[in-house]
């Protein structure tokens, strides 16, 4: 469950943001989860709660929203745009796990469905990011 490490990053990032913006209480935190990393919402949700500092007043009342972002790719040689499903997805469990750890391993595991090139751009849906933070 390396999700804990990513949840930890999210919490630290939110607190850093609060620090820099002089925010006393974070009210809402929208976290985006890219499809490519195949992090299960429930796992990540659990990780966030586990990692959350018990005595952290700035986060105590924050509503945390998890959004999933579909992955979209564009092939550089042939300009074809495709989704994860259209690429055929990971062939083996090992491929899925490799991309779960390092989404860039898509270039080792996936191919453009039109021209088979590994030289594609990941337009959206990579990994964990913070979409927005609200506070007061």
């Amino acid at each position, binding site marked *: 469950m390396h999700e804990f*490490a*990513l949840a930890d990053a999210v919490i630290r990032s939110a607190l*850093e943001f609060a620090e820099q913006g002089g925010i006393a209480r974070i009210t809402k935190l929208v976290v985006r989860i890219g499809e490519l990393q195949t992090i299960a919402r429930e796992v990540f949700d659990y990780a966030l709660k586990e990692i959350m500092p018990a005595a952290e007043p700035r986060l105590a009342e924050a509503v945390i929203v998890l959004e999933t972002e579909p992955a979209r790719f564009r092939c550089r040689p042939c300009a074809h745009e495709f989704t994860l499903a259209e690429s055929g997805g990971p062939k083996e469990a090992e491929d899925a796990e490799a991309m779960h*750890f390092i989404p*860039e*391993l898509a270039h080792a595991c996936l191919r453009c469905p039109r021209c088979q090139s590994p*030289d594609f751009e990941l337009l959206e849906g990579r990994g964990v*990011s913070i979409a927005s933070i609200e506070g007061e």
Partner: protein
Amino acid sequence: MDPRLSVVGARLAGAARILGVTGGKGGIGKSCVASALALALARAGRRCGLLDLDLTGPTDHVILGAPAGFPEEAHGVEPPLCSGVRFMSLTCFAGERPAPLRGADVTNALLEILAITRWGELDALIIDLPPGLGDAAMDCVRLIPRAEYLVVANASRVVQETVRRNLRLLTEMKAPVRGVVENMARSGSDEVRRLAAEHGAPFLGSLPFDETLEPAIGSAERLARTPFFAAVSALRKTLFP
């Protein structure tokens, strides 16, 4: 907002010192020096990590003979212990598959590795850098500002040309150069010493060209018996007294 940027410092906080092995040029033995240095630290009883940041041409797993397979997950990724060295490389996840990565992918993959790897307490973290003055080299300076650098060079004219550019750049980026070491030294030549002096960097001596190194690759036991390793162990004492 990229949450990974907020956690890199914390993940590396347990490492007392961080040393990047660089030089700009490929094939001068950066990976052999980095791997042997990590091994020498472990054999001297130090807690040591080795991070292979040559993401599109990783070789440290071959040099150390690291076993294949995904690392353990425990509130992050635990770098497997390999001949006493905590080891992390893209190959831990990619295995044999070639991973062509453009610059932005290198930055992302490198940042992901830094964000999820739990090194724990280390006396030293050795970072093996790729050739070239590209994304990995610049991200190492940017994301790990307290990293120091060991520059590997040799007497060849094409190597000198490349290492000179690398040294100029490290100096400009205010990255502390701990020293320059000559590798694959065959006879007494003064080129590398002069190159170091030119850039105000300490010259840390020469590692011999060693015919017995190549057959020892893949086994820490055999590596540790080479004259090359003996010379790296002496270098280790200078760098980590």
